[in-house]
């Protein structure tokens, strides 16, 4: 039997069920906590740290931290907004994010978060890393220039598709998403119908022959900031 837990987010009283994470309870209460690696249908990963909140004065990932009675959560403080902005900035300079020709532009969660935070230009120097593209598969491709290592494809392929097509290899700056085959994506059993293809927040994993299907002005984040669907509740 689940029992009710009451806590506060930015001074507002929120009620949740025992076992819920801070993010789940906040979503249900119509409070948006920014996130990149978290996705409702996937197990929490806690890797992007964009959802960092202060819990009783200590930083915690809202997507993994369970709620507790009387917990004091801070979400929209100046300090947290600055930390989140810096994380988004770093994701932009660590990859090669050329929005101007990316098919995901307008529907990209990384870009949408930058819009929501009003970022006109990153504050850190661009690294322009050399990353590769895997276009061997007939229906899908990987562009590692746009990968932010959120692990959504890894989790979706493992937990929903039951295929284990993707996994991380390497450490630190050299960490990248690899495929479960000797060489290329074409050698795996990845299919265009896999959920793993749909969950990528950026344009790192895309379906071929879709292109710029939705006109500018009608895309997901053209008019409304990311998270406004949660805040509307």
């Amino acid at each position, binding site marked *: 039997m689940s029992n009710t837990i009451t806590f506060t987010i930015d001074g507002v009283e929120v009620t949740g069920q025992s076992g819920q994470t801070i993010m789940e309870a906040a979503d249900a209460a119509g409070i948006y906590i920014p996130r990149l690696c978290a996705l409702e249908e996937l197990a929490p990963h806690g890797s992007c740290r964009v959802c960092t909140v202060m819990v009783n004065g200590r930083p915690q990932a809202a997507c993994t931290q369970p709620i507790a009675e009387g917990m004091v959560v801070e979400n929209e403080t100046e300090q947290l907004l600055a930390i989140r902005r810096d994380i988004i900035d770093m994701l*932009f300079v660590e990859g*090669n*994010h*050329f*929005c*101007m*020709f*990316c098919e995901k*532009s*307008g529907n990209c969660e990384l*870009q949408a978060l*930058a*819009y929501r935070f*009003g970022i*006109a*230009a*990153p504050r850190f*120097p*661009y690294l*322009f*890393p*050399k*990353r590769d593209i895997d276009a061997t598969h007939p229906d899908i491709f990987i562009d590692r220039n746009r990968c932010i290592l959120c692990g959504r494809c890894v989790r979706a392929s493992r937990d929903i598709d039951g295929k284990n097509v993707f996994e991380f290899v390497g450490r630190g700056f050299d960490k990248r998403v690899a495929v479960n085959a000797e060489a290329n994506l074409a050698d795996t059993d990845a299919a265009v119908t896999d959920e793993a293809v749909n969950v990528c927040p950026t344009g790192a994993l895309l379906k071929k022959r879709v292109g710029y299907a939705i006109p*500018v002005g009608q895309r997901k984040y*053209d*008019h*409304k*900031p990311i998270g406004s669907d949660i805040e509307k509740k």
Partner: protein
Amino acid sequence: MAKPKVATTSLAGCFGCHMSLLDIDERILKLVELVDFDKSPVDDIKEFTGRCAVGLIEGGCANEENVRVLQDFRRHCDVLISVGDCAINGGIPAMRNGIALMECLQEAYSTDHRLGPKVHNPDNVIPNDPELPLLLDKVYPCHEVVKIDYHLPGCPPPADTLWEALVALLSDKPVALPYELIKYD
């Protein structure tokens, strides 16, 4: 009182941002009432004639001439604005940044498959005339070369973005753009 002056330039850009500036339609008449253009492709003035209130920079720095022009703008302009994705992050020209410069030049000029109907370069010569500005090792965003005061992203930035920002600056108001006017594409 004399009108404030605006200067514009396109460094490693495609002039698309300048096209977007022209896209303000009939407001261009109001713009002419508001400002005079100094060094700019709009009026073809090649050198600065004096101090400017606002400098609009399109494109990043791909060669030494780009750097000189950008530094010249910084010296002459009170407020310098990076206009468009190329000025802000290098844009399309910056796609060469992960590849060594010599490799890029060889691919463009000295490989045999480049000998086609549109390229007459029988000796596979890489251009090296003293008249040509030397290329930099990579394409640099403007704010990594000089201090930039404002950034207006977009490819190109919408005409409304340019208009709103210019009018705010010229009337001493803060540049506060609504959500829909900050876009990266």
